[in-house]
């Protein structure tokens, strides 16, 4: 672990600190803070005070408690959607790379078509039909995000599949499943890990944008994007209420991007040293 840390640059270590701090805040914070995210504790849009560090929101709830709970919601949804994207993209990518032929052709064409589309627009179209239940949101986000996971996995797996030890395994007559899990997957993992970070940021910003537009997480639940929408009126009084939840999202995204950037640089360095 310490060796792993020493290989990262300062910016990436800072990013790691931000991400861990954020996760600790949204998962432990709600137990420490004296207010719940649903109780009304003051007047509407009151400015920050000693009792309410970030002030109150559009119906007088403590904004800090709201942001911690909303951040937790955003993290959980984004994590599930990203896992969904990998659950779809990785197996399809590996199988496509190894099998080739018509299977590869069909899946690649579908993915190309999906990627010819602006993601947010496709999400809006699908959600207009499926409705905005949580399973529908997760499904749409997973499918949208899986296209890039598929392409990446397919490319990396194709590289790996062309190597000699794979050829030997093939000649030995190993079966497909052994092949995937013992030979191909371990070689794809480092690349996929950094991609997981990028996909997570994509998912977090997508779900927040959808919620901000009123088509994501529905009340009474709220994620960070929904809170921006709830509090948007406050901006005309010069209050920060809609900016703070958005800032929380940005901090998370910046933290993850810093770590991913550092990992990418480190992987590039390792490649050079080969």
């Amino acid at each position, binding site marked *: 672990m310490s060796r792993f840390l020493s290989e990262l640059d300062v*910016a990436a270590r800072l990013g790691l600190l931000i991400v861990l701090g954020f996760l600790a805040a949204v998962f432990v914070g709600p137990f420490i803070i004296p207010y719940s995210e649903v109780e009304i504790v003051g007047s509407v849009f009151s400015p920050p005070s000693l009792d309410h560090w970030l002030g109150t929101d559009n119906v007088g709830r403590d904004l800090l408690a709201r942001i911690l709970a909303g951040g937790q919601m955003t993290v959980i949804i984004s994590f599930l959607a990203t896992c969904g994207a990998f659950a779809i993209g990785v197996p399809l990518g590996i199988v496509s790379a190894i099998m080739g032929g018509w299977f590869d052709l069909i899946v690649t064409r579908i993915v190309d*078509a*999906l990627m*010819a*589309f*602006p*993601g*947010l*627009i*496709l999400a*809006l*179209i*699908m*959600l*207009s*039909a*499926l*409705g905005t239940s949580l399973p529908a949101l997760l499904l749409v986000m997973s499918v949208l995000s899986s296209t890039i996971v598929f392409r990446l996995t397919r490319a990396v797996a194709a590289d790996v599949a062309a190597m000699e030890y794979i050829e030997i395994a093939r000649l030995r007559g190993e079966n497909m499943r052994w092949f995937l899990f013992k030979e191909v997957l371990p070689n794809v993992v480092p690349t996929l890990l950094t991609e997981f970070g990028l996909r997570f*940021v994509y998912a977090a*910003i997508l779900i*927040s*944008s959808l919620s*901000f*537009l*009123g*088509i994501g997480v529905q009340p009474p639940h709220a994620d960070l*994007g929904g809170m*921006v929408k709830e509090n*948007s009126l406050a*901006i*005309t*009084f*010069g209050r*920060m209420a*809609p*900016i703070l939840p*958005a*800032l929380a*999202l*940005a901090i998370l*995204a*910046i933290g*993850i*991007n*810093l770590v991913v*950037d550092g990992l990418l640089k480190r992987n590039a360095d390792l490649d050079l040293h080969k």
Partner: protein
Amino acid sequence: MADNSIQALVLKRLASGLVTLLIVSLLVFVGTEILPGDVAQAVLGQQATPEAVQAIRDQLGLERPAAVRYLEWLADFALGDLGTSLVSGREISEMIGQRLSNTFFLAAVAAVIAIPLSVGLGLLAALYEGRPTDKGISILTLIFVSLPDFLLGYILLLLGAVVLGWFPALSKLSDSMTFWQQLNAVALPCLTLALVTSSHTMRLTRAAVLSVMHQPYVEMAALKGASRKRIILRHALPNALSPILNIVMLTLAFLVVGVVVVEAVFNYAGMGRLMIDAVSKRDMPLVQACGLIFASVYVLLNLTADILSLLTNPRRRRPK
């Protein structure tokens, strides 16, 4: 090798662009049809009486097979008939007209800011690779890439409209305004859009220019003693032109999608808000029309980028 003449290649690319458009239209249509139940039921929700459901089913012609409805919809669309809205009962083409031009105005002004900004900064970062200028620009863009569009929007709104009071908080256009008044009205959303998209395209420009600068022929030119200016203008730029043109088109494509969130922040009456309203009211014909327009513009811009890159980069004319 008559097959590889430039006209034939461009035609081939145009044809495949047309196929992409068809697939996209199919996706739009299928996307709104993937309901587990029935569109009419979903549109009405709680108020679904059997008569009301039947009325909508008749209006949408749901009794007929989906393939027939798709072809009809596509043919009508190509002829300019976008159908009627389920919610308001108005002609969709009438609802879209003004909003489409509002959105194009917004995107055009944003493009005028975004393209020089992103290409300029990208070049600057590439030329000073590894030095403080480059690192500064790179960290700044990494932060901007991570910012959600609405955060930038609200920060600019707070600064520009509330604190400084230079610009209106609601971006409303009307015909009685002069061009300068209109520009003033859209200044904040345009700036938001420009900043959001520039950070992406700046990173792409930097990477494109650097990959050219690391080519052996650039090193060769330097070894021959060519001046830095000559290397950049005579050797690097012609080769970087194709990726940069591509990036410019990509910026435009990003802009087209970026408008959806930015219009919501500034309450701007454009296509993005029309589509959001349609989605939340489940006005399927309107969703389909907006979706197809957004997607077509996006595909056409990408197609233009590809063709420009074919024209500016002779290497791409040879099959690998």
